[in-house]
């Protein structure tokens, strides 16, 4: 019997992620409802720059992965642990209750690859939707079409990591066989849900692909939000020099002419994370980067997703959360 959650399509009992087994003729999770981490973030920290601005999310993840990225920042739980790491046993209703009590608009599956514990994630998502929460994930995108359809039933957003356009890169640095399923899923999801894409740039390895990726994404959706991450040297790449910011910034500025919602972050102080009006250049959303990954929202200057200067409509899903309109401690989600 073969697993149909990711494109390894493992023949049981062997499984690349070590998270599933065959039981009574079905693919079954070995460690259901076990999570290594749950913590708080906000849309911009996911990063999600064009959806639910400034809303708080409960970020939750398990362990193990179907990939082995050479620069994984969560390798201690995603790649290395096997079954050694500490896990919380949290049933779906408990996860949702925690999120609601912590003033969260939604739940974001992250830390490890969501498809290695998909039944548990779907159970949480189902319960979260029942309670009116938004649900989404960050994923390496190496899932099957069947898994995509399962997630689309409940998930409101995806942030897919497109690490390169090259199979060679995927084989050498990501531990996956091909980029093709990832591209197929990006194309499939783009017309069906809120999608943002992230690419970690490793200088001299994939920085030459930046313009080509921008063109590829623009061909799918000219307003696709794309997050270029500066490599934070970790795990097997911990001795690498991080990419030259000036050089990559110049490329990002070129990309913005192809794909306006292109951002460059994962380093403190970056100024290439504001959303600009694609028509007149007005700053519509200001953000600051104070840590790795995403950012904080610092000012929101749009109304009804329109540029206040020229009226151009900008891609945005969900409403802006203005904490001044509510007291976050009262448990209300704005």
């Amino acid at each position, binding site marked *: 019997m073969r697993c149909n959650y990711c494109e390894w399509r493992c023949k049981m009992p062997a499984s690349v992620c070590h998270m599933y087994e065959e039981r009574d003729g079905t693919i079954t999770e070995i460690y259901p409802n076990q999570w290594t981490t749950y913590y708080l973030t906000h849309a911009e920290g996911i990063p999600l720059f064009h959806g639910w601005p400034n809303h708080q999310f409960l970020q939750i993840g398990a362990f193990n992965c179907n990939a082995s990225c050479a620069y994984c920042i969560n390798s201690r739980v995603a790649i290395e642990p096997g079954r050694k*790491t500490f896990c919380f046993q949290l049933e779906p209703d408990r996860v949702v209750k925690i999120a609601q009590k912590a003033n969260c608009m939604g739940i974001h599956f992250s830390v490890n690859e969501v498809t290695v514990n998909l039944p548990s994630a779907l159970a949480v998502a189902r319960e979260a939707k029942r309670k009116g929460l938004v649900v989404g994930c960050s994923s390496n995108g190496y899932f099957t079409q069947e898994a995509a359809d399962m997630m689309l039933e409940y998930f409101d957003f995806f942030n897919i990591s497109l690490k390169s356009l090259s199979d060679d890169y995927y084989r050498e640095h990501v531990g996956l066989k091909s980029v093709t399923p990832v591209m197929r899923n990006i194309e499939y999801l783009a017309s069906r849900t809120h999608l943002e894409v992230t690419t970690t740039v490793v200088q001299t390895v994939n920085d030459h692909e930046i313009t080509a990726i921008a063109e590829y994404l623009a061909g799918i959706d000219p307003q696709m939000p794309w997050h270029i991450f500066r490599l934070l040297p970790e795990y097997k790449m911990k001795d690498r020099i*991080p990419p030259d910011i000036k050089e990559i910034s110049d490329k990002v500025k070129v990309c913005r002419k192809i794909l306006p919602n292109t951002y460059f972050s994962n380093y403190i102080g970056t100024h290439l994370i504001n959303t600009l009006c694609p028509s007149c250049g007005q700053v519509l959303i200001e953000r600051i980067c104070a840590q790795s990954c995403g950012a904080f929202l610092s000012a929101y200057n749009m109304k009804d997703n329109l540029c206040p200067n020229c009226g151009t409509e900008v891609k945005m899903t969900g409403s802006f959360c203005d904490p001044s309109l509510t007291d976050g401690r009262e448990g209300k989600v704005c």
Partner: protein
Amino acid sequence: MLGIIDVREWQAVIDLVTAKPVKRDEEFLQPLKKLAERFPYPGDRDNAGSKWTIEAAEAVVNHYHPGWLFLGFTQPFFSSTYGQCTIETRKNTAKIIFDYILGFAKKHSFYSLIVSTGGLVPLKGYIVLPELKGNLQSSAWCHNMAGVYQSEPGDEAVLAQEPHIRSIIKKEDFAEEYKDTKPAYIKDFPDYLLIAEDGWHFKGLCSNNRALYNIEKYNSTLPVYSEIGYPGHIEGICSLMEDALDQGKKVLLAVIEGLDEDDFMLPYQNIDNCRGWYAYQGYTLYHTLVTGKPFYQCTHPPIYDMSARRKLPLRYPMSAPHTGTICEDSLGRRAKVPTAAVGSRSITTHAMVNADLMLECYIRAQANMGVLVAVNEDRYHANLNI
């Protein structure tokens, strides 16, 4: 407060109150940019981190000539918390750091005061409390502490049955006991503040998912070495330093994280570190060392509500991301002499010490993002006659 971020081969000048970039190109920035560039942070896990503090301090002192200097060393803490560290290794590390400090102090004519934040104990186990209805929120810094927010009836009984909790402080009891605490502090205080027995680590919302080997313990006393006399209590260190400064002495306060009295290789006294049920640790210890104020007058409680939303525009988003408040009344801010700090406890250095000129590593979730030079321009310019 002005900040110069250096992430290797790229710098940005920002206003730390808003964290937004500012266009500044005055001449006075050049040596500060150079300072940030010269000292990329090597990390906390070996002696290079301690050497970084002392070498950066040398550059800071030569540039600014402070009369009061704060130095922060974290390598003993991080090495023991996230890895196996033998007693011999820790003692060797301690000796290196003490030699650095005393040699540096002698060279620059500082009177030294060295405080350890206390020893660590091997991790015995986790406190998870799955029956709680409220949210158990852990601290990523103080692994032996947690808070319960949005509690429900029955939670107190669940807490009472947990055998490894040392203290349970109810919010109402805290507010009643410390009436002069600011309302914002009380608002941020958990329904129940929890302190574990030594060796037990709370696991909950926002807890650290890294493997821990040793964690903080309840240190009722802390070892202190001093060349300006000894206080009766840890809260007395700040006034001791102020007295020495009034006598015209240059004072160096060094904080070393993670050393127990057995590791303390200098003559020392054990100083009372408790205020009632609370033993100082984490940022509240930093706060009390530089203000002399008790923990309930810190900028925020030992556990603060990470789910609370902050109004826009955010204040100090890089300095205090969850509270927006930094220490405004530190000795670094009010001493009559120029003040400076170099520290490897990341943003805590400028958020708590708040000296005229500061250099710190910028680490978030243990990712080494670069270094930050922070400057309080009012005092910095006045002291350099800029």
